[in-house]
């Protein structure tokens, strides 16, 4: 009888928690949607503002965006001014009091240190974000820190699920750590490779892998480079024998192809995010870099 009662209670409790389990998580970028699914699994419902090929700087206003933020219990974004052009308006328009500040609002960039923070001196050189480079999702170690912060936040918002989230975090970190070691050994030859980048979208990835960006095609996104700047890059690529020019879909391939044609280097398109899985994102990044390095150097 006691056992039966125990089972019944468990069933009732678990169905109850399933029925009202879902914490609605609204993420700005697809990489955070993937992370939220890893940690929250069945206890969260995740929606995301932009798809993997879209530029996180710019978002078109669709009715479903406002609706999704209205229903959200947690808004999970990069921060560091990346979404400054649209997220504040979206939050205001949603008029959802739960997500205007912590704990309902979580910025990944606040959980880690950022590189390329601009002081007054290098601001003149055209740094884009004063708070630092926001594209930190391409450093797996920073992902680890964000995953921990997200777990704490979910546990705050949904105390009943605390053990559940922690268990998923432990599981995720185990697989993630193993994957990092795999990627690092696969990419060991990439160390000290010099590349040209379109914009500083890949700084964290390059830092992690020990690669170096020697020039940027478009230091200010959206503005055409000056002739002098292009001339300098071209001569640098030729003189230093650089083989790879990295860009991502929303940069447009024009600049990279222009440089590739004139210098004989390879224009390489890299994925920038992946909504399904962070593991596949990194798998793809490493595979492309390793294989292109073989072809182009």
């Amino acid at each position, binding site marked *: 009888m006691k056992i039966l009662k125990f089972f019944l209670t468990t069933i009732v409790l678990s169905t109850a928690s399933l029925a009202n389990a879902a914490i609605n998580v609204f993420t700005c970028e697809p990489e955070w949607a993937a992370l939220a699914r890893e940690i929250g699994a069945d206890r969260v419902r995740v929606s995301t503002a932009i798809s993997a090929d879209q530029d996180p700087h710019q978002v078109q206003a669709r009715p*479903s965006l406002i609706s999704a933020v209205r229903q959200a219990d947690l808004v999970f974004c990069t921060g560091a001014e990346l979404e400054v052009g649209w997220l504040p*308006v979206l939050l205001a328009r949603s008029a959802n009091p739960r997500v205007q500040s912590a704990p309902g609002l979580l910025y990944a960039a606040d959980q880690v240190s950022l590189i390329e923070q601009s002081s007054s001196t290098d601001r003149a050189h055209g740094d884009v974000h004063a708070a630092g480079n926001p594209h930190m999702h391409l450093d797996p170690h920073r992902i680890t820190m964000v995953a921990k912060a997200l777990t704490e936040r979910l546990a705050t918002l949904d105390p009943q699920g605390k053990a559940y989230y922690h268990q998923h975090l432990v599981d995720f970190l185990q697989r993630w750590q193993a994957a990092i070691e795999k990627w690092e050994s696969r990419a060991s030859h990439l160390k000290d490779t010099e590349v040209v980048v379109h914009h500083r979208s890949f700084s964290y990835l390059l830092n992690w892998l020990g690669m170096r960006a020697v020039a940027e095609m478009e230091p*200010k996104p*959206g*503005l055409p480079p000056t002739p002098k700047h292009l001339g300098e890059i071209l001569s640098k690529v030729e003189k230093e024998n650089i083989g790879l020019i990295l860009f991502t879909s929303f940069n447009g391939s024009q600049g990279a192809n222009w440089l590739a044609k004139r210098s004989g280097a390879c224009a390489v398109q890299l994925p920038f995010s992946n909504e399904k899985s962070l593991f596949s994102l990194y798998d793809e990044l490493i595979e492309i870099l390793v294989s292109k390095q073989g072809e182009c150097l």
Partner: protein
Amino acid sequence: MSMTDSLHILWPAFIAGALVLATHVALGRQVLKRGIIFIDLAVAQAAATGALASQILLGDAAAIWQQTGALLAALLMAVSLHALSKRHAHIQEALIGGSYILLASFAVLLVSHDPHAGEYLHQALSGQILWVTPEQLVWLAVASMVVVAMMRYGKQELSRFYLPLAIAVTGAVQTVGVYLVFASLIFPALASIRLSDASGIVRGLLVGTAGLVSGLTISLLADLPSGPTIVITLAISAAVAARSNRQ
């Protein structure tokens, strides 16, 4: 999405669109009669360049100074276009087009040493109708009333057409974006071009409202960006009205 949710999302956009139509239908008829279609692009670009210039000159100044800069530049543009229209009527459209690209290129040069360059340029001309806040609606309503009063009581061409156009476009571009401003100005006016002033404006408002409501509805149901959807439904609404007019 629930009904209250949908209403919450759409009502500010609807009011913003209606306020824009309230002034742009009558202005659009004037624009068509004068054959200077691109004047709103030139004025909108002047406003955007003015806003950028005041932002750069005054640093990250308060929004009110940016708006002042935008309005001053747009008014200046309207005054000079009016002066040019007197002396060079036969090449007015060419001069308007020329001013537009001059100001647009000037804006690119202006921000070329600014770290947030691309974002500024983009934002200045891309108001998004769905993200309109109640505060913006109040400003838009004030601007619309000033514009209507000027058109009604203005004595000369400058105070009856050029200056109100500058005010209307400056206010509207930042809330609903340049494409929707252009569409609100041209499509309802096209559908009512042969009618007399009073009935033409009524028809233009009906055509515009039909386009606005159907565009918002489609954008809600199909989850499409609202601005471009309304541009297309405005065009369809004008075409249907023009066709039924002929039969």
